[in-house]
């Protein structure tokens, strides 16, 4: 029997049996969680603009991002962020909090293997690609910047 054909048929058959995630509830949850995180960010933004009126807008934005990143790392540490993530899906991943969670979760997970080989080595197992693509992408953008 032609194995490739058999496998292709089997994959089509399995695909037809796979239950689909109920789309609307999960989309709604993602919308809600993502929206709330962004609104929280806006809250920090207003807070810092109010107390530090001398800061430029970009600096206030940075402070706001740093605050929610710190908060996410804390929530990851006390074991709450993974619950939010399991509920909210992409709503918890796409905000900068998802990036933060993807750094802190392996750091906490691999603590048992020691500070150097556990925390430090494993910290970027998930977020590594983001930093690499970010740096490479920014350099590409810099080159583009030479010509515009």
């Amino acid at each position, binding site marked *: 029997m032609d194995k490739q054909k058999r496998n292709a048929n089997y994959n089509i058959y399995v695909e037809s049996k796979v239950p*689909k*995630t109920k789309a609307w509830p999960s*989309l709604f949850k*993602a*919308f809600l969680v*993502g*929206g*709330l*995180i*962004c*609104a929280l*960010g*806006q809250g920090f*933004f*207003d807070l810092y603009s109010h107390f530090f009126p001398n800061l430029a807008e970009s600096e206030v*934005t*940075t402070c*706001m*991002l*740093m605050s929610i*990143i710190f908060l996410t*790392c*804390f929530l990851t*540490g006390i*074991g709450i962020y*993974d619950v939010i993530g*399991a509920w*909210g*899906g*992409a*709503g918890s*991943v*796409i*905000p*900068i909090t*998802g*990036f*933060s969670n993807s*750094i*802190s979760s392996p*750091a*906490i997970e691999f603590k048992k293997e020691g500070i150097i080989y556990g*925390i*430090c080595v494993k*910290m970027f197992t*998930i*977020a590594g*690609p*983001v*930093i690499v693509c*970010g*740096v490479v*992408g*920014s*350099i590409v*953008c*810099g*080159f583009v*910047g030479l010509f*515009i």
Partner: protein
Amino acid sequence: MVNVWDYVISFLVGGFICFLGQILVIRTKITTARILVLFMVIGMVLEVFNVYAPFKEFAKAGASVPIIGFGASLARGAIMATKEYGVIGIFTGGLTAAAGGISMAIFASFLFALIFSSKSKRGGH
């Protein structure tokens, strides 16, 4: 002082971006790392084509909190530094602009990794 509309638009735009991401998650089984990279690159592209600044003006935190904003600030940093310092700026600009976020993520992760340990899970979503 506090403008309620800022919150509404942050919620709606931020939520909508995540909504789009969730469509990808459902349709393509995309992993966390890939979503993050994809949306970051989208942010870079928006910045290069000068679309991000007006978008942020409109959407407030709805534009800066999603990782799109992180990508855009990397790109903007590189472009600005290149204009100011020439070729050296290509390499220094991006990370300089994003330094706050990355440093805080690393520092806070390190700190809380020292304090907390991972916990057993209960059922999924």
